C-alpha cells in the first residue's frame, strides 16, 4: 500500500511538471523506437505494394473477363447478323427465281475495260508482230497513226467486237471498227466515217444520225424540223437505249440550222470528250 502511494505520488509529480521538463525523456523514448519504426514503415510500404499488385492482378483479371464477355456477345451478334443476311439473300434469290420472265430485263449492258495504246506501245507491238489487228484485218501500220483511229489492248478473246462503243466516264469516245484476238481498232467520234444513232435530250427524244466530220464539231442528221431542237441540248447514244442503263453522252448541240425547203435540221454537235485520248476506256457491249 505504501509502494502504491509512493508510486502515485511520483506520477502526480510527473503530471504536474511542465511538459518541457519531460521532453528529454520523451525524446529518448521516441529515439529508442525510431529504428523499429523505420523497419515497420518499410514493412507497411512493402505490404501496400504487395496489396496494390494483388489488386492490380485481380483488376486485370476482371478486365480480361469483361473483355471476353464483350467478345462473346459480339460474336453471338455477328452470328445472328450472318444468319439474317443469309436468310435475306435466300429470300431474294427465291424472289428473283419466282419473278415472271416478262419482268426481267432481256438484255443488259456490260463493259470491258481496255487501255488505249500510245505511239510507243503501238510501235513495239508492230516490231514484235503482236499487233494482230493489222495482220488479221489488213490495217497497215500507217493507218494506225492516222487521225481518228486508235488501238486498245482488248480484242475478240475478251469479248470486243466491231460495233461496240468505247466510253470514258459516261462520254462516248469512239466505236470499235476492227477487232483482232487481243487488240482492237477504235474509230473516234470526230473521225470521218463515224456514224451512230443518237437521241436528243432524253432516251425517248428525237432520233438522228451523228457523223464524224474530221473537224471539231460533228454533224447530226435525219432529225425532222418538226422536232424542237435548241443549242445546249444533250446528245445521247441512241443505240444503247432500252437496256435500263443511263445512256452515254455524245455531246451537246452547238448550232442548229435549217436549209431552205429542207425537211431535216442541220445540227452541229460539240463532242463531250475532246482533247487527248483517254488512258482507259470501257468497251460497252450488250449481254443477255
Amino acid at each position, binding site marked *: 500500500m505504501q509502494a*502504491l502511494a509512493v508510486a502515485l505520488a*511520483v*506520477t*502526480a509529480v510527473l*503530471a504536474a511538471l511542465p511538459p518541457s521538463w519531460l521532453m528529454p525523456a520523451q525524446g529518448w523514448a521516441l529515439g529508442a*523506437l525510431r529504428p523499429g519504426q523505420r523497419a515497420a514503415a518499410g514493412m507497411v510500404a512493402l505490404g501496400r505494394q504487395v496489396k496494390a499488385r494483388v489488386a492490380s492482378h485481380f483488376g486485370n483479371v476482371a478486365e480480361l473477363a469483361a473483355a471476353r464477355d464483350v467478345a462473346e456477345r459480339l460474336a453471338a451478334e455477328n452470328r445472328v447478323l450472318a444468319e439474317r443476311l443469309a436468310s435475306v439473300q435466300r429470300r431474294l434469290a427465291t424472289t428473283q427465281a419466282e419473278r415472271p420472265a416478262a419482268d426481267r430485263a432481256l438484255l443488259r449492258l456490260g463493259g470491258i475495260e481496255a487501255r488505249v495504246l500510245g505511239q510507243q506501245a503501238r510501235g513495239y507491238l508492230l516490231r514484235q508482230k503482236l499487233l494482230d489487228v493489222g495482220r488479221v484485218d489488213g490495217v497497215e501500220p500507217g493507218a494506225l497513226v492516222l487521225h481518228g483511229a486508235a488501238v486498245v489492248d482488248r480484242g475478240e478473246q475478251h469479248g470486243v467486237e466491231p460495233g461496240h462503243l468505247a466510253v470514258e466516264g459516261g462520254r462516248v469516245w469512239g466505236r470499235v471498227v476492227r477487232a483482232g484476238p487481243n487488240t482492237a481498232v477504235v474509230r473516234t467520234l470526230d473521225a470521218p466515217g463515224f456514224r451512230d444513232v443518237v437521241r436528243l435530250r432524253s432516251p425517248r427524244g428525237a432520233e438522228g444520225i451523228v457523223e464524224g466530220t474530221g473537224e471539231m464539231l460533228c454533224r447530226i442528221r435525219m432529225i425532222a424540223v418538226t422536232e424542237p431542237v435548241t443549242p445546249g441540248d444533250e446528245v445521247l447514244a441512241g443505240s444503247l437505249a432500252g437496256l435500263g442503263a443511263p445512256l452515254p453522252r455524245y455531246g451537246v448541240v452547238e448550232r442548229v440550222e435549217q436549209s431552205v425547203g429542207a425537211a431535216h435540221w442541220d445540227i452541229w454537235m460539240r463532242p463531250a470528250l475532246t482533247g487527248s485520248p483517254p488512258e482507259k476506256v470501257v468497251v460497252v457491249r450488250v449481254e443477255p
Partner: protein
Amino acid sequence: MPYVLLIVFVYLAALVDTALAEVLRVGDVTPDLLALAAIVWVLLVPSRWAFLTAGAVALLADLIAPGRVGVGAAWMLLIGFGLSGLVQHARRRRIDRRLPVRLALTAAGLTAWCLGVGATAGLLGDAALPLLPQLVRSLGAALYTSVVALPVLMVAGWTRTERETF
C-alpha cells in the same frame, strides 16, 4: 526471463502503437497494446509488486504518446493494484488460469484504464474531443484491445500449461 520477454513485448507493442496505428485503425479506434502488456503482466506474474511494473510500462506509454505524462501510469497503478487483489482471490479459488476469467479481468482492467485516462484527459482539457465522445472512444479502444488480448491470453495459457506438464 519474464522481464526479458516483457521488454521485447513492450518494445514491439510500442512500435505497433506508434508506427502501425493507422494500419490497425478501425473507425476512430486503435488498440493500446502497451496497456494490454501492462495488464497481462499483472495477470500472469504472481508477484505482489507486479502493479509497479505495470505502472512503469504505462509510464513509457505516456512518454511516447501525446498528452500529460503520468496520468496513464497513475491509473495503471491503481487498476493494477486492484487487479492484483482480484487475481489473488481467483487464485485462492483456483480459477485464475481459466481463459474466460483472465479475459474478463483483462477486459475489465482495460476498460477501467481507458475510461479513467479518457475521463482525466477530458476533465483536464487535454483531450481533443468533449468528455462524452472521448469516453465513447475510450470504450471502443478498450473493446478493441480486449479482442486483441484473446490470442495473447490463449498463447500465454498454452505456454504456461506446457511448462507445467514438463
